[in-house]
């Protein structure tokens, strides 16, 4: 009987989180930024009361995860566990840093990440079973972002190495964040402006369709850094040999090749989805519109494009997430963005600097995915409602 009461996934999560708590180092302690770090367990990193609280809460959460309970209970338990671990990591950094010592670095270690991973899996699983509505998903995302903002603002994490890396380059961080967004969103807009007409053309002129789509497919296959490279050489040649080109900001190295490459990559999803969205429009609907005396242009604008909207929105989601990821690589060719910190961090073997670049990128991509998914779902639903009305 007891076998049926045990939740298999909860058991696996407990198998990851328990040993992570008890045996894996929670933080890494360094006397300064350069020296090799020493691993520190939860029980040496935290004051006794805090270690006891963390252990108690974690065991409670994992026990509740291992028994089959209501989904809402699991969501709350996972949230409680996550917040506790996030508080503990801040407390550990404060506890290990001697007063007034600004050289000491306390970084997150594998135990912390494993616990975070296990508890996130618990939360994600519970949320997946809960199946929240689009608006609720966006509110949950907002809640998550506000929680992280609250942690950063409260000063609880100030002694963490990651936050120290952030505070020493706060200006640079926001500048690169802006460049990253500008690159990702700007290239999306440019690709949309080119891709939508191109998609309509492909829909109308069937001969062009195969040729354009297979060309875009080839471009999509070329790895990003190679495409950057292929654009750098000609752009560099133009800048060097064409008067006035470099004044316009056209240079071999910098944001220009990255921007062009991102636009080229974005074209395939946008064109392909526009075509499939338009092809999917019921012929009876457009025929009826024609019967009402609408011109081709009117049919396209008032009937076909609105009906193809969910497919086009899906393409925008794919492109946005893809662009946010690829914009990281732009830093390699001097295009800026969060990749600057990632590659600097790799160069200095400074994990926290890598995290400073990688975590916001992941967060940005995740936000884009959740928001666009929700919007697509809302648009699809609106379409269905108008169809039945």
């Amino acid at each position, binding site marked *: 009987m007891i076998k049926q009461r045990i939740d298999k996934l909860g058991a696996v999560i407990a198998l990851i989180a328990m040993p992570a708590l008890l045996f894996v180092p929670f933080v890494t302690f360094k006397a300064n930024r350069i020296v090799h770090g020493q691993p520190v367990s939860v029980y040496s990193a935290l004051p006794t009361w805090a270690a006891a609280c963390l252990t108690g809460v974690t065991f409670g959460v994992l026990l509740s995860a291992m028994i089959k309970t209501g989904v809402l209970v699991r969501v709350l338990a996972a949230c409680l566990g996550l917040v506790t671990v996030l508080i503990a990591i801040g407390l550990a950094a404060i506890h290990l840093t001697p007063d007034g010592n600004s050289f000491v670095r306390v970084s997150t270690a594998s135990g912390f990440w494993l616990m975070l991973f296990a508890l996130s899996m618990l939360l994600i699983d519970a949320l997946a079973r809960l199946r929240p509505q689009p608006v609720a998903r966006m509110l949950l995302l907002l809640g998550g972002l506000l929680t992280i903002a609250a942690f950063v603002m409260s000063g609880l994490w100030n002694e963490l190495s990651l936050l120290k890396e952030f505070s020493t380059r706060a200006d640079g961080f926001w500048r690169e964040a802006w460049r990253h967004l500008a690159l990702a969103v700007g290239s999306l807009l440019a690709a949309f402006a080119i891709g939508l007409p191109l998609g309509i053309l492909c829909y109308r002129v069937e001969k062009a369709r195969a040729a354009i789509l297979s060309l875009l497919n080839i471009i999509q296959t070329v790895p990003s850094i190679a495409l950057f490279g292929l654009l750098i*050489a000609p752009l560099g040649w133009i800048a060097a040999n064409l008067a006035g080109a470099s004044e316009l900001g056209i240079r071999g190295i910098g944001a220009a090749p990255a921007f062009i490459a991102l636009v080229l990559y974005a074209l395939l999803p946008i064109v392909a989805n526009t075509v499939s969205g338009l092809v999917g429009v019921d012929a009876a609907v457009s025929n009826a519109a024609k019967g009402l005396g609408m011109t081709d242009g009117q049919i396209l604008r008032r009937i076909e494009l609105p009906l193809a909207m969910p497919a086009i929105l899906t393409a925008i989601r794919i492109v946005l997430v893809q662009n946010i990821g*690829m914009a990281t690589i732009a830093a390699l060719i001097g295009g800026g963005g969060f990749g600057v910190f990632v590659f600097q961090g*790799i160069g200095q073997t400074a994990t926290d600097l890598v995290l400073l670049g990688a975590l916001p990128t992941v967060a940005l991509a995740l936000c884009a995915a959740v928001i666009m998914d929700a919007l697509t779902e809302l648009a699809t639903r609106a379409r269905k409602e108008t169809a039945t009305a």
Partner: protein
Amino acid sequence: MQITSGIVFRTLFGLGILAFLARPEWFESALGLFVDPNMPVVYRQGNLFFLLLQHLALVLAATTVATLVAITAAIFVTRSVGIDFMPLSRSIVSIGQTFPPVAVLALCVPVLGFGNGPTLVALILYGLLPIFENALTALRTIDPAVLEAARGSGMSESQKLMRVEMPLAMPLIISGIRLSAVISVATATIGSTVAAKTLGEVIVAGLQSYNYAFILQGGVLVAALALLIHDTLMIVELRMQRLRRPVSN
């Protein structure tokens, strides 16, 4: 369709690449246009052909491991024993693919150090997702009537899996493998920033010394490798669909 023009283009491109690998000096004057007269024109710090092979080997190794793990996992969560893991695995697939490959790569470095190791792990982790996603979709969307018929004809669970479900799922799985391998070629290229031995080395060396000729030859070689892998797997996929067609009719 313009299959013929595609074949002609690919053949010429392939021959050009082979000629460049065998006799780089033939291309020196053309590449020389992009660099200052006193700069090296052809990358000679490592043999380009060996770099190409190492790049290919890394991608093949990662894709093989990713395929085995992904298919096993997809089979597991679609059986009754593993059904509890289905909602989570579907979320992991959609969330995991929003992680930029560079981030995955960079985060492997502190754990594994520099070199081929972190790149291989990043390639496997990241390459798992498209294969798993496609395998999952393929196994979940098999017509229940077909499964019922298999059961009715006295097949055991494992016979049903091997003789009915896997063959039906194969084309979609292959297309996942193609996607994964193409992504891996790209991620392996970036791997050279953490000292993996791949063609990315040529591009990175070019970026560091503002040598546009290096950047160009590295870029073309990587692009050629990606297209080669893409086309090969595409051919396999089309073959398989063609083989299946008479059966499903």
